[in-house]
């Protein structure tokens, strides 16, 4: 289950993907108030197809802004950033989050009332 924090984490991957000669893209989540004390940047891991994320690095300038996730009822789960050989961003794709998995009521209900016609 991806938490909102992890989702934000994933967003920073997009920023880290961009080389110096490319673009910096700010990805903003709707209804999110940033925590100025918690900023992470992620760089490609030397171990394989993953990223190492470290704190205390911030982007102060960006070329483009994406307000992402308005369509997502539960935030964003994944972000994919595609760049061309110039290092410029050509496509950003994001996937909405889902709510946590829950259980069912412990004691089953034994009665029901007909649903109203107009909820």
């Amino acid at each position, binding site marked *: 289950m991806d938490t909102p924090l992890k989702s934000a984490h994933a967003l920073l991957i997009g920023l880290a993907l961009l080389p110096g000669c490319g673009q910096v893209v700010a990805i903003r989540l709707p209804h999110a108030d940033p925590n100025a004390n918690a900023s992470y940047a992620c760089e490609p891991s030397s171990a394989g197809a993953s990223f190492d994320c470290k704190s205390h690095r911030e982007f102060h300038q960006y070329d483009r802004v994406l307000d992402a996730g308005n*369509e997502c*009822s*539960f935030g964003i789960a*994944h972000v*994919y950033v*595609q760049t061309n050989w110039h290092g410029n961003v050509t496509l950003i*794709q994001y996937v909405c989050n*889902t*709510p*946590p*998995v*829950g*259980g*069912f*009521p*412990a*004691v*089953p*209900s*034994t*009665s*029901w*009332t*007909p*649903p109203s016609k*107009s*909820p």
Partner: protein
Amino acid sequence: MPPQHPALKAHLNEEWRDIHFANDEVRCTRYEVVPSAGTVEGQLAEVGGAVLAVVRDAFDTNQPLRVPGGRWSLSNIGRPHSSLLDLSNYRRIGPVASPWLTPAYRATAQHTGVDPMLIAAGITINVVHRELAAAGRALKTSGASDGQTFAGAIATGTHGADLKVGALHDTVLALHLVVSPTRSVLVQAAGGALTQAAADSLAGWFGMPCDLLSDNQLFRAARVHLGSLGIVLNVIVETVPLYYLSRERTPQLEGASWRAVLSSRDPSKANALHSTDPDYLQFIVNPYLPLPETDPRVWLISMRKLAFSAQPGVVTTPTDVSLKSDLADFLPTLVSFYEHNIELPSNPVLRNVTTAQLRGIYGASASAESALPGAMFGPPDFLGIDFRPARGASAEYVLDAAQARLGVQTILDTLAAQAVAGHQYLGGIGVRFVKGSDAWLAPNAKPINCFVELQSIHTTELPAIHTAIGNALRGAGIPHAGHWGQWFMNTPEVAAQWWGQTAIESWRAARADLLPSAAARSIFASPILSAAGLA
């Protein structure tokens, strides 16, 4: 007036595509169910109310309604027309309450360690694996990959390679279907495990009447429902104590003994290379003679289920790519062949690349691994990759296991002949054995079934290749059918030969029973029904 409900969010003009890009894009309205109440009971009532609002609108406007599921199918079985009911946010799983079960079932279950679970049908299989493992439970079996929703997996007959259990739909105890704006049904076998209390509870939770239908004819239809018997809201499935899969994988040269295993009347016992009495049996086959010829042609894979008690060395999370059973990760390299328009006919480079790819994924020497089911059948790595302009394709031929050797050889011979004719196949082959099912339209319709899966790039030559394979199988006198979620081949003629007219008419009769009006059947009909002669 579009459907209105506080827990419903309408997304207009959204794109629908399957994740393999096998179907053309469809623009439609997605109605997302967004439960937000502060209590479990409140959220279940929201889900029920929102579903009924959308179903009522479909009936009022006489418009087709589909549930998007995991968008995992390559066939058009899940292809929407104009409206989608998105149940992705209804994510619940939990043990079935004791009063829901008959005393006889409870006694048997306690003895065998089986525990039925209630699962929101829109949860994907990978989440089910994860949540069950956390509770010390496991599905009895599942498919080779795990991105399907539970409802979608059983709708299409998703099967894996289980010789003793069968397919996922063979582990289902009951399905909770919404069949109209005023009715839901809980369908189980005659003399089934569930009591009236189960239907009463579901009615109360979701705010909709629920009839308990204990009927073999309906149950055999509902388990492989083709997404056409109403909205599958919940499924009750039997789970077992958490096990891990101990896998043995052995490469074999072209001339080695693998064909003898295929031709055995009991393939599970004919594989002398591995431990006896495996639960799963599978082959990976290079579609071409390897280049170099000293490379393996085939990998024999068998697996046993063993009780899990946190043994060291058992992979528990789906991150180890070496465990992948699905062939899809094999495809991205082949995309570049297609995109760069490399001359394909009889191209030795293609043979060389295919050989190297398979060796890279499945190894050049025997190996053994252990993993939980959710790790062994984890997601393929290609998710997120845009295959365009090339598209993914997968065709799965199911044969009677008694004809496995002849069938596989017929397919290999056809691929070789097609390559010479300039129709190069860009993919791999998986062969899996699965116990039979009594569900009317289950692809695993024979006592033991041999599934031959061809996962590939969707080249312009591919339709001709599959037409040739179908003709060759018919010419060799090998009845066959296809997986409902993959390359469509279940024409009325194929269906009649594989399932028989009785099974087909029984499935249609069950559909008419659950959905009495022509309008209702039209609203819930998958586009695949017309092509299969089942509408």
